[in-house]
């Protein structure tokens, strides 16, 4: 079965206060447990803020290190989950639940197989 990358995009700036974030994280935890129970869970990661990122470029013998994320925007990748699903509709069903819980835009993207094909 194909794997899908489910990415959560969140606005830059401070996270919501604990009284708002708490229930959201709790529901996300439930979602993760349901994923595992369904055998659809592969990997989950939350990311620290984009300000903690470092970008590295190597050109010839020169190495350039810059502070901050690769792409600056109003939103950034806040975390992601890799799931396994029979098709896009099944993947969209899982993603829809995250969108409802977080009220954030969620990107669903198929992952290439080991040989690079779809």
């Amino acid at each position, binding site marked *: 079965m194909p794997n899908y990358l489910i990415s959560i995009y969140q606005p830059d700036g401070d996270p919501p206060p604990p009284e708002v974030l708490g229930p959201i994280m709790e529901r996300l935890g439930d979602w993760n447990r349901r994923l595992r129970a369904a055998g659809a869970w592969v990997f989950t990661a939350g990311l620290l803020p984009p300000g903690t990122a470092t970008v590295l470029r190597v050109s010839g013998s020169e190495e350039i290190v810059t502070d901050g994320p690769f792409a600056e925007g109003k939103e950034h990748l806040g975390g992601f989950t890799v799931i396994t699903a*029979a*098709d*896009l*509709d099944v993947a969209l069903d899982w993603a829809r639940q995250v969108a409802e819980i977080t009220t954030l835009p969620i990107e*669903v*993207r*198929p992952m290439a197989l080991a040989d690079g*094909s779809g």
Partner: protein
Amino acid sequence: MPGVPGSAEPDQISTEIARVFRAEYGRAVAILIRAFGDIDTAEDAVQDAFATAVTHWSADGLPPSPAGWIITTARNRATDRLRREASRQDRHAQAALLRAAAEPIEEGPVHDDRLRLIFTCCHPALAPAAQVALTLRLLGGLTTTEIAHAFLVPEPTMAQRLVRAKGKISGARIPYRVPTEADLPARLAAVLAVVYLIFNEGYVAGSGDELIRTDLCTEAIRLGRTLADLMPDEPEVAGLLALMLLAASRRAARTTPEGALVLLADQDRSGWDRDLIAEGQALVRQCLRRNQPGPYQIQAAINAVHSDAPTAADTDWGQILQLYDQMLALTPSPVVALHRSVALAEVSGPAAGLAAIDGLPLQSYYLFHAIRADFLRRLSRQAEAAAAYESAIARTANAAEREFLCRRLDSQTGE
């Protein structure tokens, strides 16, 4: 005719092949996609089969079941081609062969493959323009060139759009099945929107290649009939088909031979297609009996009321206003409110219509200004009417509509 090479054989046979092509292309492609799990393989095989049919049928006449002949020939062609490719160690070809050999077994009620295909083509994960192009290509059998012309898009752009859409279907694994009951209402709405968009693209007179755009109406109605056959219990499917039939019935009367737009009130009603009206009205009556109203059914009912009136003066505007009230309650939108104002003006006068559209957030919509101009004209507020006509003209690219509005503007400025 798309996909079928020209033939020097008798006209009757080529007309028959054209008819079979139109009627069966989508079904053949849909069946082959299920069998081989690949859109390109299916399309190539079905086109191949039709090309073979031109030679065989011209010599021997049509087989007893032309559709069955096409599907069997296409299946054999695809299998032969995949075998050749599989012997060259092509992993995809081997997979497709295995799949075809396994011949998937249906679960639950058997659905027509065309229904799966249209839900795949109109999947919300595809851009609307791609949904339209794929539907016309795979279900209607239109060539890329035809679709490009119909939508006034350069051919390479349309070709790229189709390739990209097919790439997304296979890459993201957009499923080839009818959505689950929970998803069905939203997904069906997307399918109906695509069919109606195709129809309207063909219905708007005076832009693009007239003939090809008329074809779009025919194609949309064909898709509507297919859907109505396959989903007989969905009232909005019947509603959309009725709406298209009733609108199409007025097509000939809607423009002058020179292509100028003729308003509903000014149309020669003897030019309306009575067969289409009868079919559309029968569907509207069916919908009324079912009593599960939806936006397409209500629009169809409004069109049915117009079709009932022997002259414009006989129009039952009271009933039309009631239908618009129902529509506005169901789908409150400024555009519905705008259309309702036209009925209101007929029932209660242009001042009431004007008041009803005051403040609608439709400043960028030409029809808002055109309708407002008409109310002002009828209220003899000439300077304001002229200004409103100018606003409308500035906001439409459609030649027939511009020409109509310019004539009205001239009547207000006395030129």
